[in-house]
């Protein structure tokens, strides 16, 4: 009943006043993001400039990105979506897209082209992993280590995490199978391009868990990205994985004795998604903002405030120096050639299929 009413309403608005609604934009914009340094970089790089151009607009922030999928589903079921634009990681975006909670977008139509005229779909290239998703940044999950605890033999290979003899002490790993299983197989001698084939078999899962078993009692499992920098700073762990931006701020902004281990860093994407079925005036405002916030210059500007790589190819040459520290940001980007020598490419499709199954096995293994 609700649906038919809605569609009747949509039809009538479409018939009566398409022109009026297309022109009118809502003046309130509810943005959902992660809070902290990341949200601050978004405010500085494109929200404040947008507000300067459109003083009539009021932006409301909701720091709910970590629970975005669940909240989006609850709001959609209740028929009252209060969010306008949501920041989400790529895997969550795919999930919401599958559930029909967010809008499919024609990237070339709604996004700005690169300054040289390259259409958006080419400029973002293969990073457009879902039809519903507009990537902003490339971040990576990678390792940091305590420079004073590893002696004069700093690790330069991911397999150092499994080497308890050379690097005794605890390690911090994320409490989920994603990335950890791949690293375990890689360090157990599986070739990089065969990792997902091996992991698709029950034996492969056993093999990965057996490898993780060798360090299980030396692992501190984290769930929030802020935990690893804290554990490293306290000397609780000798090395640990987290998002590269967190390590950057611990090293460059807080001068902690931490070094970066970029080998086999796991790339991931973060970007915008638009809730499905927004009223026309709100959607018009969202699309206007989205086009501005993801253009070449804006994405490059964001890298002044946080060490995540812009998702557009055309933004890369424009990346400059940190806004406050004045250091060159390029060498701190996960996408910098010096850092991206050996990367692990995360297979979204594979994990979308196998996440629940592997998670059950991973959790059972953890509880053992």
């Amino acid at each position, binding site marked *: 009943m609700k649906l038919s009413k809605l569609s009747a309403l949509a039809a009538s608005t479409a018939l009566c006043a398409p022109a009026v609604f297309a022109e009118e934009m809502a003046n309130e914009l509810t943005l959902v993001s992660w809070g902290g340094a990341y949200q601050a970089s978004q405010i500085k790089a494109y929200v404040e400039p947008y507000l300067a151009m459109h003083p009539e607009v009021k932006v409301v922030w909701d720091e709910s990105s970590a629970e975005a999928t669940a909240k989006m589903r609850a709001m959609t079921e209740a028929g009252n979506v209060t969010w306008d634009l949501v920041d989400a990681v790529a895997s969550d975006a795919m999930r919401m897209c599958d*559930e029909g909670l967010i809008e499919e977008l024609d990237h070339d139509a709604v996004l700005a082209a690169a300054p040289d005229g390259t259409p958006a779909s080419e400029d973002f290239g293969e990073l457009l992993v879902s039809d519903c998703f507009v990537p902003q940044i490339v971040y990576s999950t990678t390792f940091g280590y305590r420079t004073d605890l590893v002696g004069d033999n700093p690790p330069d290979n991911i397999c150092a995490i499994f080497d308890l003899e050379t690097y005794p002490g605890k390690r911090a790993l994320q409490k989920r199978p994603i990335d950890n299983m791949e690293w375990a197989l890689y360090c157990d001698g599986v070739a990089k391009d065969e990792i997902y084939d091996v992991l698709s078999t029950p034996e492969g899962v056993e093999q990965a868990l057996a490898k993780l078993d060798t360090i299980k009692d030396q692992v501190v499992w984290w*769930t929030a990205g802020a935990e690893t920098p804290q554990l490293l700073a306290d000397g609780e762990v000798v090395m640990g994985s987290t998002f590269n931006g967190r390590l950057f701020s611990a090293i460059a902004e807080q001068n902690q004795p931490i070094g970066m281990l970029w080998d086999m860093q796991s790339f991931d994407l973060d970007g915008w998604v638009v809730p499905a079925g927004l009223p026309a005036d709100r959607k018009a405002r969202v699309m206007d903002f989205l086009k501005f916030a993801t253009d070449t210059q804006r994405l490059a500007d964001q890298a002044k405030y946080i060490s995540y790589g812009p998702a557009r190819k055309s933004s890369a040459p424009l990346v400059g120096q940190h806004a406050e520290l004045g250091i060159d940001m390029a060498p701190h980007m996960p996408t910098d050639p010096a850092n991206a020598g050996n990367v692990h490419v995360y297979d979204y499709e594979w994990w979308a299929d196998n996440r629940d199954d592997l998670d059950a096995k991973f959790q059972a293994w953890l509880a053992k």
Partner: protein
Amino acid sequence: MADTTQNGPVLAADGTPLKRSLSRALRMQKTRALMLVAPLLLFVLITFLLPIADMLFRSVENNIVSDTLPKTVVALREWDPASGEAPGEEVYAALAADLQVAEENKTHTRVGTRLNYENPGISSLFRKAGRRVSKWDIETDGPFKEQFLDMDKDWGKVEIWQTIQTYSPTMTNGYFLNSVDLMKGADGVEVRPENERIYITLFIRTFIMSLVITCACIVLGYPVAWLLANLPTRSANMLMILVLLPFWTSLLVRTSAWKVMLQQQGVINETLVWLGLVADDARLVMINNQFGTIVAMTHILLPFMILPMYSVMQTINPSYLRAAKSLGATNWTAFWRVYFPNSVPGIGAGSILVFILAIGYYITPELVGGTKGVFISNRIAFHISTSLNWGLAAALGTILLAVVLLLYWTYDKIVGIDNVKLG
């Protein structure tokens, strides 16, 4: 007088039978009482009971498959998975027709996600098929079996079709089976493979650890409550503030404080090493395990134990103890035989509060529980917010609720719920 008792019913002053008059008055009184509580009743019903009932209902609800794939479900009824062969063309044709409609409504990926919980891989099969099928003409483009197999050979797998068939009824017990480490197999209910069993372990762990926490709260809280009830008012008020102060502090702050205290480079370990009681390379592991969870949760839940105990102890008349002693009881006998039995209702109330809060606890075990100290609620939260498997979360929640009610009932039978007092 004799006349009235013989002839018919007793009449009220206005001539109506007294019985009816009385019942009318009572009914009015009841209606008035009901009207007074109606706002609260409605509020609780709408904002609390109905949403909970709706959420719990998800544990058995399974409309999505038959709603999204109506023709396929009907066509599949004839098919027997024991034949070991994929179904025939008519099922594939039905699926093509269903998927085309579903793709238009963007529901094909939802049914894929639902079935993927039971059989990993179905999610992407449906996603890819939707894209392809939307371009077909159902009238003329058949036969479809070949085309589905061309798209992905997995469409020929018996297990895929078996999963669709098993989960086509509108109600399912699959979520409940899953939440007790069972599953629907080829021939009825089966035990899950050992490397996927987790929920029974977690349920048992949750109950044992909650019991330990409750006991720790009783042991630590009883003397404090006794002091509170028996000190002069001034010092009792000071002590009361000390009890309430942590109560007013953020849960996260207290949990993080325990991290700082208990971790290997933390305050306690540093002190022990400095005192020479513990070697530097053999620091105690006190956090990210069950010990850490018990310590932190006992601290957080302690006020819930102390306050009901205190309010019961305050009502115990001190002259009872004096009377016991004047009749020759030792201090211990007077306490154990007179004071303690009088304080039991407070212990009961505190224990129920602490235990029920503990089994549903989530934040603290998540932060300091490591791998061995997490509770069932952490998995429920995971399925609500990360895996979006709300059916399974609802089934786990229903079981937890049922067990709590069962424990409450047992408590009532053994101790008697009348014997619980909050003051």
